[in-house]
C-alpha cells in the first residue's frame, strides 16, 4: 500500500478542523442536538486524525521522504536588492518530524475533543468552545505542516490567539481574562523575537539568488529537494548567533521557558481540557518543535546559542519543579511539571540531540494529556482543585485513579512507562556531551536532581487525591466515576503512556527519527554500560521521590512543616513563584504604565502646550495690532498714503540698491 499519495493532500489535515470552526462558528447555536457542535468537532478532528495518522504511516513506509507542496501567498515584484522579488509562500511539508507531530497533535486533539463532550456538558458558550478548540487544532497542525518560516509564524500567532481565547474562556472571571492577557503578552514578547530571527535567517539564507539578490522563495525550509543548509554556509556566524538566540526567545515564549514562563501556570484558568491540549499537543509543543525545526532546516545553532539553550532548558527544568513541590492546586502542579518537562526537551535540543527532545515531546504529550484529563475528571465530579480538600478518591473513581497512576509513573520515569525511555534518553544525551562541554555540568546536575523532585511532587498529588479512606472536605459533592466519553480518551491515553516510549524500537517508526540527515541522533536509546548506570541512578532517585511522597502524604496523611522552621520561608518563596510574576506585574503594570502616563503628560502639556502657546502669542499679537483700527476715516487714508509712499521708496531706492548689490536686474 502506497500511502505517499496522501502527502499532497496533507493540507486537508488542518482544513478539516478549520471546517469545523467555520460550521460551528456560523451555525453554532442551532446545533443543539449535536451538543452545540461538539460532535461535529469530534467527527472532523477524528477525520483529521485518521488522515494525519495515515500520512504518518506513509512517511514511515517510505522513510526519508520530503514532500513539499507550496503556493504563492503573495509576491512582491523585483527591484533593487530583490533580484527575484519576494515570494511569501504557504504550503505543506511532509517530512519525518512533521509526521511524528501529526500523530501527536491529531491523536491528542481528537481525544481531548471527545473528552470535552462529557466534561464541558454543563457549560455555557459551547459553540464558542468547540469552534475555538477546532481552530486551535488547525493552527497547531498548520505549524506542524508549515514548509517555511513565514507560514510557521503565521500559524504560530494563530495558536497564540486561540490559546488567548481559550484561556479566557470563562471571561466573566477577572482572573481568567487577566490570565489570558498575560499569556498573550508574554508569548508576544517571544513572538517578536522570533520575528526578528525570521528576518535574519531570511536575509542570511535567501541571499542566494542570482545577482546576489534574495531568492524568490527565501522563506522555504526546503524547496524541491532535501538538501539542508549546513551551518556556516553563509559564513555569517554573528548574525546566525543572534538569529538563534531570537529563535530561542520565541520558543521560550511559547514553551514557557524561564524567564517567559509566568503565563503557563496562570493559564490554568481555562477549562481543563484546554490545559490538556495546550500542555500536551499544541501551544507549548510549538516552541520545542520550532527549536527542532531550527536545528534541522536552519543549519543548526552556533555554540553560543547551544549553550544558551542548554542553560535555559536545564535551569527551567529545576526551577519549575521546585515550584511544583509545594503547590496545593492540582492543575498548577501539573502545569509546573509541564514547564519542567519542556525544560528537558529544550535541554536535549541544546545538547545537540534535537530528535531526543522531540522524542520526549512525543511521549510527554500522551502522559501529560492523560494527567490533565484525569485531573479534569476529579474536578468534574468534586468541583475543587484544592488538593487538601480531596482524598480517598481511588475507591470512588477506580478507573480515573488507575489512569492518573499510569500518568504519574510515566512522568516519574519508572520503566517501562513512556516517560522513562525518553527522559533517560535526554539525560544520556546531555551526559554524552559533558566531555566536550564541561560548562554543561551544572545544568546536567539540575536536570538530574529534578528527576527526584518530579517523582516526589506528582506522587504527592496522587496520594493527596486518591489515597486514604475519605474526602478531607465533607462539604464537597459526592465523587463518582465519570461517563464513558471521558473515560475512553483516558484509557486510550493511558495505553499510549505505557507503550509510547517503546514505539521507537519499532524500525519503521524509528525511521522517523533516523530519517533526518545531518543530525546527531540517539533515538532509540542505545543502552551502553554508562547509560545503564545513569538509568539505574535516575530510577533510584525517582523511587526515592515516590517513597518520600508516600511517607509524607500517603494513606491520608498530611505533613505539616514544624513551626519556626526555616523551610517556611522557602515554601513561601516557592508559592510566590520566586516573585518573578510580581516583578512582571510591576514592570508591566506599574513601570510601563507610569512611563506611558508621563509620556501622556508630556504630550498634553509640552507638545500640545507649545501649540497652545503659539496660538496665545498670535492672539496677543493680533490684539496689539487691532489698536490701529481707530475707525477714523482720515487715519485709514493716512495709512494708504503712507503705504503708497513706502512702495515709492521701495521702487525708487531699495530696488535699485539691491540690484546694484546683487547684480542683474
Amino acid at each position, binding site marked *: 500500500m502506497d500511502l505517499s499519495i496522501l502527502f499532497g493532500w496533507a493540507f486537508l489535515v488542518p482544513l478539516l478542523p478549520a471546517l469545523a470552526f467555520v460550521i460551528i462558528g456560523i451555525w453554532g447555536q442551532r446545533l443543539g442536538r449535536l451538543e452545540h457542535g461538539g460532535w461535529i468537532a469530534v467527527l472532523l478532528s477524528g477525520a483529521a486524525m485518521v488522515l494525519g495518522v495515515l500520512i504518518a504511516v506513509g512517511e514511515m513506509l517510505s522513510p526519508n521522504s520530503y514532500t513539499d507542496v507550496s503556493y504563492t501567498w503573495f509576491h512582491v515584484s523585483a527591484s533593487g536588492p530583490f533580484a527575484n522579488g519576494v515570494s511569501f509562500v504557504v504550503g505543506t511539508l511532509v517530512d519525518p518530524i512533521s509526521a511524528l507531530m501529526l500523530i501527536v497533535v491529531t491523536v491528542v486533539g481528537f481525544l481531548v475533543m471527545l473528552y470535552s463532550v462529557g466534561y464541558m456538558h454543563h457549560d455555557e458558550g459551547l459553540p464558542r468552545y468547540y469552534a475555538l478548540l477546532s481552530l486551535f487544532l488547525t493552527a497547531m497542525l498548520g505549524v506542524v505542516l508549515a514548509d517555511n518560516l513565514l507560514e510557521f509564524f503565521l500559524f504560530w500567532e494563530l495558536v497564540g490567539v486561540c490559546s488567548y481565547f481559550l484561556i479566557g474562556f470563562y471571561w466573566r472571571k477577572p482572573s481568567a481574562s487577566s490570565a489570558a492577557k498575560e499569556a498573550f503578552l508574554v508569548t508576544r514578547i517571544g513572538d517578536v523575537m522570533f520575528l526578528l530571527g525570521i528576518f535574519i535567517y531570511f536575509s542570511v539564507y535567501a541571499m542566494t539568488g542570482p545577482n546576489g539578490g534574495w531568492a524568490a522563495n527565501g522563506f522555504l525550509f526546503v524547496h524541491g529537494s532535501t538538501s539542508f543548509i549546513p551551518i556556516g554556509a553563509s559564513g555569517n556566524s554573528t548574525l546566525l548567533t543572534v538569529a538563534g538566540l531570537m529563535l530561542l526567545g520565541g520558543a521560550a515564549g511559547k514553551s514557557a521557558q524561564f524567564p517567559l514562563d509566568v503565563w503557563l501556570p496562570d493559564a490554568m484558568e481555562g477549562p481543563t481540557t484546554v490545559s490538556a491540549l495546550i500542555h500536551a499537543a499544541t501551544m507549548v509543543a510549538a516552541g520545542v518543535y520550532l527549536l527542532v525545526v531550527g536545528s534541522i532546516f536552519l543549519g543548526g545553532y552556533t555554540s553560543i546559542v547551544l549553550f544558551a539553550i542548554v542553560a535555559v532548558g536545564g535551569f527551567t527544568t529545576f526551577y519549575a519543579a521546585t515550584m511544583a513541590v509545594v503547590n496545593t492546586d492540582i492543575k498548577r502542579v501539573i502545569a509546573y511539571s509541564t514547564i519542567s518537562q519542556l525544560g528537558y526537551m529544550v535541554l536535549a535540543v541544546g545538547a545537540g540531540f534535537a530528535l531526543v527532545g522531540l522524542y520526549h515531546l512525543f511521549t510527554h504529550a500522551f502522559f501529560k494529556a492523560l494527567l490533565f484529563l484525569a485531573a479534569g475528571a476529579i474536578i468534574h465530579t468534586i468541583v475543587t482543585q484544592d488538593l487538601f480538600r480531596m482524598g480517598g478518591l481511588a475507591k470512588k473513581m477506580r478507573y480515573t485513579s488507575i489512569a492518573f497512576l499510569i500518568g504519574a509513573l510515566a512522568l516519574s520515569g519508572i520503566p517501562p512507562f513512556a516517560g522513562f525511555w525518553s527522559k533517560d534518553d535526554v539525560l544520556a544525551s546531555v551526559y554524552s556531551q559533558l566531555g566536550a562541554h564541561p560548562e554543561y555540568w551544572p545544568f546536567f546536575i539540575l536536570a538530574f536532581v529534578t528527576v527526584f523532585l518530579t517523582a516526589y511532587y506528582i506522587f504527592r498529588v496522587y496520594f493527596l487525591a486518591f489515597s486514604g479512606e475519605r474526602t478531607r472536605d465533607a462539604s464537597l459533592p459526592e465523587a463518582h466515576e465519570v461517563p464513558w466519553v471521558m473515560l475512553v480518551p483516558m484509557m486510550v491515553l493511558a495505553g499510549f503512556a505505557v507503550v509510547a516510549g517503546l514505539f521507537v524500537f519499532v524500525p519503521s517508526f524509528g525511521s522517523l527519527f533516523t530519517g533526518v540527515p545531518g543530525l546527531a541522533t540517539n533515538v532509540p536509546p542505545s543502552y551502553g554500560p554508562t547509560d545503564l548506570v545513569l538509568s539505574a541512578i535516575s530510577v533510584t532517585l525517582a523511587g526515592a521521590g515516590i517513597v518520600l511522597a508516600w511517607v509524607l502524604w500517603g494513606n491520608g496523611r498530611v505533613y505539616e512543616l514544624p513551626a519556626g522552621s526555616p523551610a517556611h520561608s522557602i515554601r513561601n518563596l516557592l508559592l510566590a513563584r520566586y516573585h518573578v510574576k510580581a516583578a512582571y506585574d510591576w514592570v508591566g503594570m506599574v513601570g510601563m504604565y507610569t512611563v506611558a502616563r508621563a509620556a501622556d503628560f508630556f504630550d498634553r502639556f509640552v507638545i500640545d502646550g507649545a501649540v497652545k502657546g503659539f496660538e496665545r502669542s498670535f492672539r496677543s499679537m493680533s490684539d496689539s495690532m487691532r489698536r490701529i483700527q481707530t*475707525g477714523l*476715516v*482720515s487715519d485709514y487714508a493716512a495709512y494708504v498714503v503712507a503705504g503708497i509712499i513706502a512702495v515709492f521708496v521701495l521702487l525708487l531706492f531699495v530696488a535699485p540698491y539691491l540690484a546694484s548689490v546683487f547684480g542683474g536686474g
Partner: protein
Amino acid sequence: MTTLAITGFLALSFALFAIAIFGILTRRNFILLLVSLEIGMNAAILNFVYFAALAPANTGSTSGLSGQSIAVVLIGFAATEIAVGLAIVLALNRSKGSINVADSTTLRS
C-alpha cells in the same frame, strides 16, 4: 497752435493732488472731505486732458481722443461721487446728528 511747457502742467497737477491729500488727511468735516476728493479728481482729469494733447501730431487725427474720452467719463464719475457722498452726508447727519467723521468710527450704528 498753442505750445506749452510740459513740466509746468505736471507740477500743477501734482500740487493740486498734494493739496487734496492734505485735505483728506486733515479735514474732519465730511463736506470738506468731498471737496478734497474733488480737487484730487480734477488733478487727475487735468492730467488726462493734458496727455491727450501730448499725443504726436502725425499719428492720425483721433489718437489723443482716448484721454479726452476718459476725462469725460471721469467728470461723470465725479458727479456721481458727489451725489452718493451727499446721500452719505444725509444718512450720517440723520443717524449721528453730525457730519464730523470723528463722530462715526464704527460702520454699524
